[in-house]
């Protein structure tokens, strides 16, 4: 695979992860259980959407066909989205949202840390900013997972249910294909598979405090990177893309 094409596709995948999760987290705005969380959620959504914007803008440059961040975010269909299935999962209850955030941030923090050494200066720059933001997300989500997992009977049950529901989506984080292999060979981006040990350590550390156990996943769910998504992504995009689809080219 040509390096430029691989870089474009990987930038889009990362941008799609950030945008879709950012949108999901923003859905909590005005609905969080306490005021502090009502501020925390949109703040984290902003981090993710900000990262998505930088990534889309750069992906557009790399592609070189004149597409900008808005074209890439608003005018691609679900089959063209390359995000992880994990990030498109509906918010569920607060336990599921926090666990999804922990699973994702515990992967992205080491991903961005290593991407700072990318031979691509722009990607390294985006990584330098994002890595610090992800450190806060891990801490925030980790604290909640512990508080709920080691909390009341009901909160512990909800946390355990969340683990059961979301664990099947975590193997996809570490998937490799010709896109990631091409970029690893060119020194442009980290190998997702190489981050598994650190991710396991972070999750184990939180889970042992939270009295949770990771289930054995017999049927890992995958396909997001290839554009094969669940029904939920379509609903999310119909909300996210509504304005540009209805009034093409609309500007604020």
């Amino acid at each position, binding site marked *: 695979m040509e390096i430029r094409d691989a870089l474009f596709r990987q930038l889009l995948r990362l941008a799609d992860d950030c945008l879709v999760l*950012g949108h999901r987290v923003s859905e909590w705005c005005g609905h969080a259980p306490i005021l*502090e*969380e009502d*501020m*925390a959620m949109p*703040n*984290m*959504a*902003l*981090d*993710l*959407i*900000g*990262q998505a*914007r*930088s990534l889309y803008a750069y992906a557009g440059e790399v592609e070189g066909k004149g597409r900008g961040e808005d074209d890439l975010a608003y005018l691609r269909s679900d089959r063209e989205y390359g995000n992880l299935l994990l990030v498109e999962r509906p918010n569920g209850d607060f336990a599921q949202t926090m666990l999804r955030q922990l699973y994702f941030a515990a992967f992205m*923090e080491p991903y961005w840390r290593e991407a700072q050494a990318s031979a691509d*200066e*722009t990607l*390294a*720059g*985006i990584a*330098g*900013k*994002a890595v*610090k*933001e*992800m*450190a*806060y997300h*891990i*801490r*925030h989500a*980790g604290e909640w997972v512990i508080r709920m997992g080691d909390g009341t009977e009901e909160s512990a049950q909800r946390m355990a249910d969340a683990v059961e529901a979301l664990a099947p989506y975590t193997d996809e984080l570490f998937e490799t294909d010709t896109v990631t292999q091409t970029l690893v060979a060119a020194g442009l981006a980290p190998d997702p598979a190489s981050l598994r040990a650190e991710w396991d350590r*972070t999750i184990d*550390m*939180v889970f042992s405090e939270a009295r949770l156990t990771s289930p054995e996943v017999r049927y890992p769910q995958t396909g997001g990177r290839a554009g094969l998504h669940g029904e939920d992504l379509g609903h999310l995009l119909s909300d996210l893309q509504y304005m540009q689809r209805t009034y093409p080219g609309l500007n604020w």
Partner: protein
Amino acid sequence: MTVVSIGKADARKRAWEAAAAVPDPEVPCVTVADLGILRSVEMEGDVAVARVTPTYSGCPATLAIEMAIEVALREAGFEVRIERVIAPAWTTDWITEEGREKLRAYGIAPPVDASNSVRSLFGETVVACPRCASTETERISEFGSTPCKALYRCIACKEPFDYFKCL
């Protein structure tokens, strides 16, 4: 008619001063220079080129800050180009001593640790109250009124306050 030629160094200095005086829209007690967001102002012919670094990836103030710098430079008589630089990434280490003092006087505790001390798990930072200087404080919320701040409460003087997080 006499053409007054301003020396290049002089123009650069004037441009820097005009841009550097722009206040941060969310934390108006400090300027973009105090925060280290304004990286440089260089003259390219008659055009003042201001290089600006966003704080957080999704900071909604980024565009407002760039526009305010552009307006300040135009009012000072310059043609302007704003360049957004993302590498190296902005860090709270770039907030000047003067900036930290201004934050404290305004009631916002400045970042205490160096940015490389950010711990992802189980890290607790001791933050001194900007009003009474007591270190008996506790965190109320990791995220405050803007992405760059957390919410704390002083146990000694009972006042809640913002803490400018390390990044």
